[in-house]
């Protein structure tokens, strides 16, 4: 199974139906497959913050969700993590396609990437960087279950080692 099949299947198995996103090239196939599967309600949001608001409301209404984004999208989230997801104890599940490392060609992306883990660590948030296909299902499934049972957000960072990332000639 490919990494994106694992994401889709694991979301389904954990009854995560609502998947708003702001796209990233690496997420293209995953997004296409989510749209094709009637189990999911998936749609673009204008901002990652907005997507976090939507899945937070849905969680409180009894529907599980997850947000897909790129590293630069994560960089817009410090305020909503610190003022909504964490203090209200909402199990926000985020998949972050990692740009800015392992062959980045855009200097700005590489700088944005460096802000991500310090922000996650400064809020003591659970986060994992997935690099290997053989561990991936375990990381995703366990992280989703932990987020829900401990009512705490989690960021799953999809490394180029897992996804292939984006390279200059694409």
């Amino acid at each position: 199974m490919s990494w994106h099949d694992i994401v889709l299947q694991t979301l389904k198995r954990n009854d995560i139906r609502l998947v708003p996103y702001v796209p990233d090239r690496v997420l293209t196939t995953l997004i296409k497959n989510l749209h094709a599967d009637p189990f999911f309600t998936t749609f673009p949001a204008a901002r990652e913050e907005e997507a976090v608001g939507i899945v937070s409301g849905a969680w409180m209404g009894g529907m599980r969700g997850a947000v897909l984004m790129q590293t630069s999208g994560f960089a817009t989230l410090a305020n909503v993590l610190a003022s909504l997801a964490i203090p209200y104890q909402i199990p926000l599940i985020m998949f972050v396609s990692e740009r800015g490392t392992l062959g980045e060609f855009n200097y700005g992306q590489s700088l944005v990437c460096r802000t991500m883990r310090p922000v996650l660590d400064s809020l003591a948030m659970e986060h994992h960087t997935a690099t290997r296909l053989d561990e991936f299902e375990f990381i995703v499934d366990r992280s989703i279950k932990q987020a829900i049972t401990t009512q705490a957000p989690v960021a799953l960072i999809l490394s180029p080692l897992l996804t292939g990332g984006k390279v200059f000639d694409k």
Partner: protein
Amino acid sequence: MNSANDNPARNTKVMNRFDLTSRLIAKLKNEEAVIGGIGNTNFDLWAAGHRPQNFYMLGSMGLAFPIALGVALAQPDRRVFALEGDGSLLMQLGSLTTIATLAPKNLTMVVMDNGIYQITGAQPTPAAAVADIVAIAVASGLANSTWAADEDDFERLIEQSISAAGPTLIGVRIDDKPGTGTTRRDPVQIREHFMHGMGVREPL
């Protein structure tokens, strides 16, 4: 520079946030959800009388409508109201297009337009003198967006929204008064009580 008084959109009656919020709450008979945005919208929602179906946002400026959209998608049989300030809405104008695309028919949005960031010192918003928020909503795809002419019209629009075929946005021009109460700032309890109110969880 243009000043707020030049804005032709601002020709409806100047009403009061607490009064309108109280009128809305008085109409609710079916455990409708109500999401209050940052600051004054949730203060007045609190002051209008706490209900388990009220959610009070203590930060995350601009997210009242996105949160309400999430609740509306999760519970299509429940009516969801959202109260947002004009300054807050400017933070997330894009969310209007998301809502228009998903078109939940159980969502009613109210924009409390005082033209200012009241709670931070009443500075005018960049939109105050030049923009018409209802026109922005219409252009974002929310065809069912209207200014309320006065209090009776507001109540009529609220009632109409309940049987509308798509989401409704109601713009209300309000005075520069601060919120009436102060929400108890206990986010975990706010969220937990709201989930009880939504029938998602039982109290411990």
